[in-house]
């Protein structure tokens, strides 16, 4: 019985290694179109991971997470000079920092409220951000900003990789995804991460145990915003333009759907959800122009029949085939 979790861990490790290997080798196998598609999915996976910190591990259902994704993207759009390439190593930290600051500012207000009110105020703040970029000269209006040059990764005279090359971008995003995943894994095991999960489980008791819950939630909101900003930055880097749609509530809704598809409160689920969401999107839009109807229907069915999301499939299969797990 002591060995059961270990064996399970080993299986998980094997599955993880296989997935990593597949992603690492993918650009050699696929056409350019798919390399770029998977790059996009991995960016969305980072975005979904960042939201999972809030929804799955702190119990804060944010319906305005696209705001920080957009701030990260716009940071690159606004910082990129018109006649030369921006430097990755300068703009990336600024973008992540800007998203973190935006989240810190909004979080200071919103983490005071709970439940449905939290959903509404995060949405309201995201709409404010949307209109700041949509309706002001600062944001360049509804057309957004097209960048004339891709950022360069030059350190002094040395350029380790070329961000105008889609395969290099693929590996850069892949590395970012792995780093974010590992970082969250470690963070969620730390005293801070455990406290967040306590807040999700029973905020009232956490308070009476002496935890200053407000500050923990605010820190969580800020970390999630910073990582969403990283995803937004990578998206702007991949496509070379930004527009206000990046901050729209559709985007906030989509990333929530990815989490629901994949399984809230599981890092694997967040990544799987991003892949499943885009795969379904691609599949249905190749079948019909009314693909959103099919996508919506599929998600409803999944929520009904697989409430734990894709991340719960393995456990379900095992229960069906082997029976209930032993008492751990």
């Amino acid at each position, binding site marked *: 019985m002591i060995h059961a979790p270990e064996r399970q861990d080993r299986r998980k490790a094997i599955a993880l290694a296989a997935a990593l290997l597949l992603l690492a080798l993918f650009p050699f196998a696929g056409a350019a179109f798919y390399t770029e598609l998977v790059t996009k999915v991995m960016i969305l996976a980072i975005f979904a991971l960042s939201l999972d910190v809030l929804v799955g591990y702190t119990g804060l259902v944010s319906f305005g997470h696209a705001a920080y994704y957009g701030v990260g993207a716009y940071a690159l759009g606004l910082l990129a000079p018109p006649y030369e390439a921006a430097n990755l190593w300068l703009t990336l930290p600024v973008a992540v920092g800007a998203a973190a600051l935006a989240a810190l500012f909004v979080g200071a207000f919103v983490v005071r409220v709970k439940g449905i009110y939290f959903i509404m105020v995060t949405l309201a703040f995201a709409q404010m951000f949307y209109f700041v970029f949509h309706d002001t000269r600062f944001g360049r209006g509804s057309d957004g900003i097209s960048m004339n040059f891709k950022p360069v990764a030059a350190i002094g005279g040395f350029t380790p990789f070329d961000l105008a090359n889609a395969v290099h971008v693929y590996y850069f995003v892949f590395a970012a995804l792995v780093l974010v995943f590992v970082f969250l894994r470690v963070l969620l095991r730390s*005293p*801070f991460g455990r406290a967040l999960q306590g807040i999700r489980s029973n905020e009232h008791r956490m308070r009476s*145990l*002496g935890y200053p819950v407000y500050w923990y939630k605010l820190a969580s909101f800020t970390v999630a915003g910073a990582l969403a900003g990283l995803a937004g930055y990578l998206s702007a880097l991949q496509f070379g333009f930004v527009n206000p749609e990046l901050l729209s509530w559709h985007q906030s809704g989509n990333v929530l759907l990815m989490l629901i598809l994949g399984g809230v409160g599981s890092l694997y689920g967040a990544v799987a959800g991003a892949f499943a969401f885009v795969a379904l999107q691609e599949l249905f839009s190749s079948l019909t122009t009314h693909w959103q109807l099919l996508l919506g229907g599929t998600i409803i069915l999944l929520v009904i029949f697989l409430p734990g999301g894709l991340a719960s499939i393995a456990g379900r299969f095992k229960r069906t085939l082997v029976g209930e797990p032993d008492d751990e």
Partner: protein
Amino acid sequence: MSDVVLATLGLSRRFGGLMAVSGVAIELHRGRLHAVLGPNGAGKTTLINLLSGDLAATAGNIRYRGEDITRCSADRRSRIGIGRSYQKTNIFPAFTAFENCRLAAQSRAPRPFAVFTDAARHRPVREAAERALDAAGLAARGGSVASALSHGEQRQLEIAMVLATAPEVLLLDEPLAGMGAEEAQRMVGLLRTLAPKHAILLVEHDMDAVFAVADVITVMVNGQVLESGAPAQIRASPAVRRAYLGEADE
């Protein structure tokens, strides 16, 4: 007296037209177990909620070691040494019993910036959690998920979590309710060992237990203190008999 740890003066709480707690003055001393008795609706749980900061006082004040804490938040009160348990079990149901206590103990060494360390490996916190489980009689159940524990065991866990925060003041809201005879006996023993080094406020319906462990008893009726004194004095009081103990005799 110098060993007064927690004291209230004129403490009141109004819910609309109802004075749930009205002008209560109570003193908790280190080394004394102070029991609060009273019929349902007397304001006992409200009193604990006021002391722990779960509810804000409408009037009056609370002093902890001479400092006015009437306006302090619940989490701050916990950090400075006022721990409480709940009448209705208030735990982390999806976590193991050990993790419930570990998280409670972690509140004394929160280390929120140690983001690259594994919380479960921090020795002092682990040991504090294990001691608390052991004291509450749950040493063997640490690995079980809290929601899978029996009702009585969840009551024990409730106490273990307070103990894991190493409080100076213990506010215990019906700790024996729902416990089997054996566990209740054990808990009474635990209260006895805790009493010398803590200031304890005990709200409890089990009369035998209260008279067995209390050093001081306060009887509340309709949000007010009816009488306060040594157990013998309370037992002999005609007012208390009329208002409360008489009912129990039937």
